[in-house]
């Protein structure tokens, strides 16, 4: 009613939340409380509040100073220097100051990560090993030691071998293997986070892995005061936090909720402060003008994953033989392009975002917001330009071109029939068993294919796996296609495109999902090699970042034009929330997105209008 509108007018005066209550689903329950030993987002979302590295990210995703007051490189990224504040303290769970934070803490931490016996699961090793001088060698060295020896190592050997030094107590210098202009973006990842030697000594080296929250040392804005596995985590404000001026909650409580439907009723009763809306709730609220939450629906910002349809170019049948039909078909460029231009995913997008489905369209391979040209242009905008993507008309997907698709389809049928491909081409797609959500989406996708491309052309088959996609599907190479989202590890396009290159072991998707290296079609391989050359060319440019990004953009455009992989979607859902998402840190890489620092909140939930205003301001 109108009463609500009035209260909206006074929003500015509305009170902020002191004790935030938010939620998590059981699949994303924390497993590990020691920040160096985990790479799981579920853990880091919590730990980014209790631990802090050199830098932070702002709502736009840019790096800003944190513990490091200044940082930079003078040699195109071969050596990086971080100058720290001198007023940062380590505290224990009761908030008692335990030690000052010094440069050595970063050495201790890196040593921990690289020491094969301290960090036996190998978490957080990949970036240091690929970037920092001597890291790989040191890890190999520790492997050769017995567990006892390795645990007892002091840092002298480490400092000798690895490219890290501390000229003074508050300066850390890293030496990279090659020119790494983006090395600073790694500083927001757990692999460059510090840990105090004092802490290790206090708990004992062998107990660090299984340390409890009561023994941890904290240097972040919050202290983890409660962790009841399967139920609650409570973060309490760290009174000794260095950033005295920032805005923090007194406490943040993260409750575990069976699913968002249950969460919705909790929001309804005021037990939690924000909730993502599941399909049914969203629909019910949206379609009913009188629903009390009708005006409070707010669209979230995209999460940081760029989802792609990744084809398998060396697919196998269940019996282990090659699926020649599929492999031949997918090697055909016209076939792939017909999917690119012809497949209308609007209905799929509606599943998550029925109000504004087209906002979920993903246009490129790299995630928007990863890097910017020096003029402020987003890298992805440049890619869109290069592939001549039409502007959105708000009615259909931007890349969609029915006529072109039709032509390509004809061409593909012609070319493939000649090679003996049988139509419809069967396309195997796997989802987790027991997940109705996945099944529903897959069903819709299946119909999208049938409707847009005709089920005499491509037929999507839905299969299931029980526990592990990798184990049950990817390893035996059973899938035709996987929809996978990549989240950046650090702030460079290489991190995205590098996963798709040909013939390189570090290319994750090529090695595991697309199996391009096992493909036989010469034309296909040629395309990939071409793309790989383009990427490598860009990699080599380290001095001028604009130039570097432009080269990447060329490579990415090539990839998209040849439909080597097809952008699928962005996850943008709707919520009811008392949190202003635009005030929340939004890095595409790093672990700071759930850092409850400087969040704007309102005890009265935000309205759609409020959010529109925020968005406008944000995008300025």
């Amino acid at each position, binding site marked *: 009613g109108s009463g609500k509108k009035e209260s909206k007018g006074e929003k500015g005066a509305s009170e902020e939340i002191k004790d935030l209550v938010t939620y998590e689903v059981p699949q994303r329950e924390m497993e590990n409380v020691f920040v160096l030993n985990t790479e799981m987002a579920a853990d880091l979302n919590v730990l980014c509040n209790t631990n802090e590295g050199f830098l932070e990210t702002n709502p736009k995703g840019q790096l800003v100073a944190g513990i490091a007051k200044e940082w930079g490189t003078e040699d195109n990224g071969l050596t990086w220097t971080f100058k720290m504040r001198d007023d940062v303290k380590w505290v224990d769970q009761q908030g008692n100051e335990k030690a000052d934070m010094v440069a050595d803490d970063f050495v201790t931490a890196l040593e921990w990560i690289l020491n094969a016996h301290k960090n036996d699961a190998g978490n957080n090793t990949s970036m240091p090993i690929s970037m920092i001088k001597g890291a790989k060698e040191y890890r190999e060295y520790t492997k050769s030691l017995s567990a006892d020896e390795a645990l007892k190592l002091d840092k002298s050997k480490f400092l000798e071998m690895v490219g890290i030094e501390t000229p003074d107590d508050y300066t850390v210098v890293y030496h990279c293997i090659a020119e790494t202009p983006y090395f600073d973006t790694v500083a927001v990842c757990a692999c460059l986070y510090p840990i105090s030697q004092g802490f290790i000594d206090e708990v004992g080296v062998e107990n660090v892995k299984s340390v409890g929250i009561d023994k941890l040392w904290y240097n972040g804005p919050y202290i983890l005061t409660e962790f009841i596995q399967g139920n609650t985590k409570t973060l309490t404000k760290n009174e000794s936090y260095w950033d005295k001026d920032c805005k923090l909650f007194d406490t943040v409580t993260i409750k575990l909720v069976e699913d968002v*439907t249950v969460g919705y009723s909790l929001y309804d009763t005021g037990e939690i402060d924000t909730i993502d809306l599941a399909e*049914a709730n969203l629909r019910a609220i949206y379609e009913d003008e009188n629903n009390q939450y009708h005006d409070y629906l707010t669209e979230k910002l995209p999460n940081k994953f760029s989802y792609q349809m990744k084809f398998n170019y060396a697919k196998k049948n269940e019996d282990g033989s090659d699926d020649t039909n599929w492999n031949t078909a997918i090697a055909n460029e016209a076939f792939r392009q017909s999917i690119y231009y012809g497949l209308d995913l609007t*209905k799929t997008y509606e599943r998550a975002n029925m109000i504004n489905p087209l906002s979920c369209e993903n246009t490129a391979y790299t995630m928007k917001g990863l890097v910017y040209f020096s003029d402020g242009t987003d890298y992805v905008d440049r890619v869109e330009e290069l592939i001549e993507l039409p502007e959105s008309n708000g009615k259909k997907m931007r890349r969609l071109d029915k006529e072109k698709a039709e032509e390509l389809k004809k061409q593909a049928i012609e070319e493939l029939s000649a090679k003996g491909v049988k139509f419809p081409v069967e396309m195997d797609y796997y989802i987790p068993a*027991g997940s*109705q959500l996945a099944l529903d989406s897959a069903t*819709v996708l299946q119909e999208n294919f049938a409707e847009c491309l005709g089920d005499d052309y491509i037929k999507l088959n839905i299969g299931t796996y*029980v*526990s592990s996609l990798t184990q049950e599907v990817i390893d035996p190479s059973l899938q035709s296609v996987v929809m996978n989202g990549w989240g950046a590890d650090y702030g460079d396009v290489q991190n995205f495109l590098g996963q798709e290159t040909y013939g390189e072991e570090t290319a994750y998707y090529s090695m595991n999902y697309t199996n391009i290296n096992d493909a036989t079609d010469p034309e296909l391989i040629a395309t990939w090699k071409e793309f790989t050359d383009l990427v490598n060319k860009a990699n080599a440019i380290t001095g001028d970042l604009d130039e570097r990004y432009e080269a990447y953009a060329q490579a990415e455009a090539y990839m998209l034009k040849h439909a080597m992989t097809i952008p699928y979607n962005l996850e943008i859902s709707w919520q009811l929330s008392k949190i202003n998402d635009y005030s929340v840190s939004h890095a595409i890489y790093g672990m700071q997105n759930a850092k409850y620092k400087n969040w704007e909140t309102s005890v009265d939930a935000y309205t759609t209008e409020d959010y529109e205003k925020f968005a406008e301001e944000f995008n300025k």
Partner: protein
Amino acid sequence: MGENEKKDDLFRFVEYSAEKAERTGYSDYSYWKSVFQNFLKKKSAVVMAIVFFALVIFSFIALHIGKYDYAALKTNSAMAFQSPNGEYWFGTDNLGRDYWCQVWYAAQTSIKLALIVALGECVLGVIIGCIWGYIRSLDRILTEVYNIINNVPVIIYMTLIALLVGQSFTIMCISLIGFGWLTMARNVRNLVMMYRDREYNLASRCLGTPIWRVLVKNILPYLISIIILRLALSIPSTIALESTLSYLGLGLGIDTPSLGILLRNARNYFLEHPYLLIFPAVIVSLITVTFYLVGNAFSDAADPRNHV
């Protein structure tokens, strides 16, 4: 006076008929006929049995008369969550698919599963239970086997089976039977032990009757009523177990919807759209109540002590 006269001439001996004496009072009797008659006397059970058969038959008819074919269901988010109406008799689900044909199709699957499992459990359970109960020397070892299998949570087996073997209707049937027979066997064993040393079994031993015939003829008939009851109760519990397993992702394959799966899904929507829950729930409840009542009634009826 004539009355009295008539009486007078009745004061004479009549011939004694031994046959007549033997026959007095007893009528012809057929066991199964009496079972059936007794069963028919339980109105509620009969009604429920009829309802159940109607349900089964109707599930076939329903799929035919429904406006949508299960195999050709199309998603259409614009039609999602339509409450029951003339077009969609049971409304539509979250993807705008006709719920009517899903419910009936699922009902068929569930009933089929439950019946097969119940029967399988029963056959396996009875056979093993009989042997277990009758042959003393096997008691120890079978009890130990029972303890061992019973002490490992079923979830472990089901997960491992799903992981190692896969998921399908057949696998589900086999694995549910594989664990379900235990309780049945245990039950049968206890009963068999009760009847094992009855005097009529001694009589059979005196006559050299082989064990299997003693079991089949002398002991099993006494267990019939309890077996039937257990059989009847295992049907709803199978449906319940299936839905729990589905809830955990260990249920049937995705291409076979069951009432359990429908229920699981409906849970997410039932506050806004109760009909999604109500239809499958009502069918499950109907099946349960039917088998509960019919099982009870039948086991009563099968007991000849209750035959007049």
